C-alpha cells in the first residue's frame, strides 16, 4: 500500500504575539512547528505501514518549509517532496490542493492520502475536501481512529460535543485526521542526522505541468486582521413562570443579566433542592410534570 501525508509548517500558537492595535503578529517571536493535526496524520500513516508499504510526506511551501519534511523523514517517512510556485509568497487552500493533487498524479497515485483536519495557521479545514475534488476521490473528515478492513477504511469520526460516528470508505480516499491524543514518535539521533543530510526534491509549476492560469481562483480580500473580539452570544433565558421555587424565580430574574451571581446558604436539604431547581430551570434536568 502506498500512503501519502500532506504536512504543513505553521506558527506555534504559543509563540504568537499579536499587537493589540494592528493585529500584526510579531514575526521575530514566532516559532514554526509541524502542524499537530498533520503530525497525528503522519503518525497514523506510519503505524498503518506494513511490510512493503511506503509513506511519502509532501508539503507546499518555500525552502523555509523543508524542516517539516526532514522531521517526517527522521520519524520514518520513506520519501519527501516539496511543491512550490516561486512567484508566490503564500498560497490559498485551492492552490495548495491543486498543487498536491497534481504532484500525487505525476508521482503515481497512492492508495490513501492523509491530512490534518485543520491547520493551526489560517485553518480553513478545506484542503482535504478540495484534494478529494481534484483527485475525484471520496473524503472523510475529522477521523479520530481508523482501521483497514477488506480494502475499505473503517473509521470513527469526531462529531460535535463528544458524539462519534462510525463508518467506512472505499479506497483510494482522502482522510482528514483529528486524533487529538496522537503524537508523532520521537526520532533517534542517527535518524535526525540522516534526515538533515537528505536532499529534498522540489517541484515547481513547470515540473508539475501547470500554468499560472490554472492557479487563478476568484479573489477575496482579507481586509483586516485583528486580535480576537468575542461577539456577544445569544442565550436562551427560560420563562420564570415555569420555575417551581420562589428562590429560583429570583435567580431567573437576575438571570436576565448575562451572568447572575446568587449565593445561597442553608441546610444540605435546602441547598440540594435549590441546586436541583436551578438545574431544572436551566434545562439540565427535566421539569417536574
Amino acid at each position: 500500500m502506498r500512503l501519502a501525508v500532506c504536512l504543513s509548517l505553521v506558527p506555534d500558537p504559543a509563540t504568537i504575539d499579536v499587537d493589540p492595535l494592528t493585529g500584526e503578529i510579531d514575526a521575530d517571536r514566532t516559532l514554526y512547528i509541524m502542524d499537530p493535526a498533520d503530525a497525528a496524520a503522519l503518525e497514523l500513516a506510519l503505524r498503518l505501514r506494513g511490510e512493503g508499504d511506503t509513506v511519502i510526506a509532501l508539503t507546499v511551501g518555500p525552502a523555509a518549509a523543508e524542516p517539516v519534511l526532514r522531521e517526517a523523514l527522521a520519524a520514518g517517512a520513506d520519501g519527501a517532496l516539496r511543491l512550490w510556485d516561486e512567484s508566490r509568497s503564500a498560497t490559498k487552500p485551492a492552490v495548495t490542493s491543486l498543487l498536491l493533487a497534481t504532484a500525487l498524479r505525476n508521482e503515481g497515485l497512492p492508495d490513501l492520502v492523509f491530512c490534518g483536519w485543520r491547520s493551526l495557521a489560517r485553518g480553513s479545514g478545506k484542503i482535504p475536501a478540495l484534494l478529494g475534488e481534484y483527485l475525484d476521490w471520496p473524503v472523510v473528515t475529522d477521523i479520530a481512529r481508523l482501521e483497514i478492513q477488506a480494502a475499505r477504511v473503517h473509521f470513527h469520526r469526531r462529531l460535535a460535543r463528544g458524539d462519534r460516528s462510525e463508518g467506512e470508505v472505499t479506497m483510494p480516499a482522502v482522510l482528514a485526521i483529528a486524533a487529538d491524543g496522537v503524537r508523532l514518535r520521537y526520532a533517534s539521533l542517527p535518524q535526525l542526522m540522516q534526515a538533515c543530510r537528505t536532499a529534498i526534491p522540489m517541484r515547481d509549476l513547470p515540473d508539475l505541468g501547470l500554468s499560472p492560469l490554472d492557479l487563478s481562483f476568484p479573489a477575496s480580500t482579507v481586509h483586516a486582521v485583528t486580535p480576537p473580539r468575542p461577539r456577544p452570544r445569544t442565550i436562551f433565558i427560560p420563562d420564570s413562570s415555569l420555575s417551581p421555587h420562589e428562590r429560583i424565580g429570583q435567580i431567573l430574574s437576575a438571570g436576565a443579566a448575562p451572568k447572575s451571581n446568587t449565593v445561597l446558604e442553608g441546610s444540605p436539604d435546602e441547598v440540594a433542592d435549590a441546586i436541583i431547581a436551578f438545574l431544572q430551570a436551566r434545562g439540565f434536568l427535566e421539569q417536574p410534570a
Partner: protein
Amino acid sequence: MAAPVVVVAETIYGGLTPASLECVEEARDVAESLATAVHVILPGHQTAALADELAAHGADRVTVIEHQALAQFSADGWLAAVAPVLKETRAVFTLAPDSGYGRSWLPRLSARWRIPLASACIRVKVTDEGYPEVFRVSHDGKLHERQIWARGTAVMVMLWPGVRGVGPALPGRPASVTVVEPELDPATFRDRTLRTVPPDPHDVDLTEAERIVSGGLGVGGPEGMALLQQLADELEAALGGTRVVADRGWLAADRFIGTTGKIVAPKLYLALGVSGAGQHVAGITGSETVIAVNTDRTAPLLKLADLGVVGDLHAVVPVLIRKLRTLRQAAQAAPAVRPALLDPVIRTPVAAAAGRPRDASAREALP
C-alpha cells in the same frame, strides 16, 4: 424575487443540531439586511417534521430532501442530493455549520462552482455599501480576520458552532415547505456512516464534555472523588478537577482543568471544594453555567458562579445524589413525552439516560 440566503441544515439523532439553528438565525439577520428570504435545505430521512422548528428560528422556505439513503451521513450522498437543489436556489449566501460533515462536501461544491467559501466564520453580514463580509478565526483563535468580496458575489460560509448561540423560538412562524424525493443510488456512495454513538461521559475528552463535575482539594481524598463520580454519573457529566487534586493522585493526570491542563467550555460546570485560583478559573471561562459549592464564603469561585452554595460538600452531595435518584425513578415511572423519533434507529435504553432531553441511548441504523 431577490436571491435568498440559503442554509444547509444538519441533524443528529433525528433532531436539528444547535449549529444548524445558529446558521438559520444568522441567515435571518443577513436576509433582513438584504430584504430577502431565508431558504433552508434539510437533507435526511423522515425529517420533514423539523420544518416547523426551522421556521420558528427564521426560515421562510424549507426544502426537505427526503430519501432513505440519507438517513445517515455520506459526503457522496450529500453531494448527489444537495448540489442540484442548492444550485437551483441561486443563493447569494450559503451558510452551513463548520462541522466535519460540512467540511467533507461543501468545499467540493465551492471548487466545482467557483464560489468562494469562508470557513471558521463567527459572523456574516453585508456591509452598508453592500459587500459580503465575514469575520473568521485563524491561528487557533489568536486572530480574527475580516474578509470581504465584490458587491453581489455569491459566497459560501461555514459558521463556527457555539459562537452565535441560539435565540428563543417563535412558534407558529410560517414557512412554505417543499419535500423533494431525488433518485439516489446508495451503492454509488463511496463513503457511508454506519452508526452514530453518543459520548461516554467516562471517557469523553473534557474539552468536548457538555457537563463537568469538578472536584478540588475540598473533596478531601479519593473517597470524596468517588462520591463526585457518583454525582457525575447521576448528571451524565464527565469528572474533572483541579491540578492539586490530580497531583495527589485522586484524579487522572489528563483530567485536571486550568491553564496548565484542559481548557474546557461545558454547558454546565459544577465545582465542589474548588477555591477558584486564577490558573484554574482561566480554564473554565467558556462555561455557560457555573455552580460552586464551598465551605468558605469568600472563595473566589463562589463570586464567579451563577449559583454559589456556601456549604460542606460532604453533607450536600449525598443528599443531592439521593434527590436526583428519586427524580430519575419518578421520571422513569411516568416517562416524559419526547418528540417522536425520526431516524430509523433502534434504541437501547440506558438507565442513566432518563431525565435528559437528548438522552444517551445507543442508536444504530437498521441494517
